[in-house]
């Protein structure tokens, strides 16, 4: 596939019919969380879209994001998107390694300077550059170097987006998010641990289709996927509203599929598309499987006060504080009370007998 071929041409060359292309567009619209009425516009745009160059950098990460993207979805329509893009560097997926791989990256950067998309997964250690290096290059300098010529950066996964688990307390590597180091490029945070695969491809498809980055929320995430909380779109929400909760993982409420709020579900403060897009080809998502949401697409989710502690519960021992306060209060109260009693007793002692001659001011003085 040559670099100046449009997507439409590339697909036709692969023997894909117009009907197949329309199906591809419908699936892409669904993937981008766009309404089906947008399909004709998407078809027109994709027809003319040029295949972009993509460089994928993996830093302090577990490869879960790449797994999420590749493992369960091959071959798929999203796969086609990847066929369409030019994935010029991905050290987990590419055959080349070592200096040959780095040469490929540098070549792609040079060739597509200012136009390529940089995808990053994993957080970047800042405490010591030696904590994570690729071909002897520290993550930080590789990111800064590669970001220079990027048209946009997609931070895939919570580690790249917000620091994620490497940044969890006590953050030994001084891990930071992409957005902590790069300030002058558009950054799209595709958070999640891992993110929903279609969200990754959806963002790429959006860029491919419209040549722009999608509308983002305050945390830099595409609103199309992160616009609503898990809680708001959760099929168990009616149970929350009715006040029906599972109290343990094996009680009647759990078996009946009641709300998992009491078991620590972070759905109310977590924004992601799990409840509608779901996982594994739309099969299920954690809450459907009976486990509370961990809030993995939110910053600092690992340090959020316990996965199984309900959001409204205190994170410190309040009972003990209250008991101590009662004790201290009783002591202080008795002390104050004793002072008051002494004062009142003094007042009683000071009291001079009142006679009818004491009822007027200065009656004696006259």
């Amino acid at each position, binding site marked *: 596939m040559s670099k100046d071929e449009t997507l439409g041409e590339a697909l036709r060359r692969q023997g894909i019919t117009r009907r197949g292309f329309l199906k*591809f567009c419908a699936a892409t619209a*669904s993937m981008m969380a766009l309404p089906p009425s947008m399909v004709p516009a998407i078809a027109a745009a994709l027809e003319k879209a040029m295949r972009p160059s993509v460089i994928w950098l993996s830093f302090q990460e577990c490869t879960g994001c790449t797994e999420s993207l590749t493992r369960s979805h091959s071959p*798929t329509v999203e796969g086609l998107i990847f066929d369409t893009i030019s994935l010029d560097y991905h050290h987990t997926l590419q055959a080349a390694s070592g200096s040959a791989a780095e040469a490929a990256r540098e070549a792609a950067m040079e060739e597509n300077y200012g136009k390529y998309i940089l995808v990053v997964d994993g957080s970047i250690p800042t405490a010591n550059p030696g904590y994570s290096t690729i071909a002897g290059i520290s993550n930080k300098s590789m990111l800064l170097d590669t970001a220079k010529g990027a048209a946009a950066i997609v931070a895939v996964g919570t580690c790249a987006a917000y620091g994620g688990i490497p940044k969890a307390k006590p953050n030994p590597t001084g891990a930071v998010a992409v957005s902590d180091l790069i300030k002058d490029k558009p950054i799209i945070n595709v958070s999640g641990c891992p993110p929903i695969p279609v969200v990754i491809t959806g963002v790429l498809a959006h860029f491919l289709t419209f040549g722009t980055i999608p509308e983002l929320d305050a945390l830099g995430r595409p609103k199309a996927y992160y616009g609503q909380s898990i809680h708001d779109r959760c099929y*168990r929400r009616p149970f929350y509203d009715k006040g029906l909760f599972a109290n343990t993982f094996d009680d009647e409420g759990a078996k009946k599929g009641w709300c998992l709020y009491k078991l620590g579900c972070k759905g109310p403060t977590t924004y992601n598309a799990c*409840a509608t897009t779901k996982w594994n080809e739309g099969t299920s998502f954690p809450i459907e499987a*009976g486990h509370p949401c961990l809030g993995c697409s939110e910053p600092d989710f690992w340090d959020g006060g316990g996965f199984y502690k309900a959001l409204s519960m205190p994170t410190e021992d309040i009972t003990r504080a209250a008991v101590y306060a009662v004790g201290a209060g009783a002591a202080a109260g008795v002390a104050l009370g004793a002072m008051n009693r002494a004062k009142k007793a003094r007042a009683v002692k000071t009291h001079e007998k009142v006679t009818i001659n004491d009822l007027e001011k200065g009656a004696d003085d006259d």
Partner: protein
Amino acid sequence: MHMPDVTPAMELKVETADALTCNVQPLLHEIRHALARLLDEGGHTVIDLRSLPLAPGEEQQLLDELGNGEVYARLHALGPTEIIESRYPGVWIVVHYNSSDEVIGKFIEVCDIPNLLRSQQADIQQGLEQLQAQLPAAIN
């Protein structure tokens, strides 16, 4: 040593309440409105089932409500696609699969015929060219 009785098999019974999100009825009404619009103005409506929060079983409930009508079509374009007319003429259920038979999209279309069923202009053109190439002495 006394061994306690072990329950032979763990029973896993997950009950799902009926119409948990209560989204099935509103969807059916939406389809009804779309059908009326189709009759009056010829308007074409597509509902993406992936964009809706549905409880386990609710999607099946909806499909059961719609039932199967006269048309069943299976296309092969970038993997199979099933297009079924429901028992309500004009209401179609369109399910796209990839080449591994995994569902990649599920839609309800309200129209006289889903666009995907029609032969596409570009494909006809291509077909014509192929046919012409097939025939050695075509009469122009």
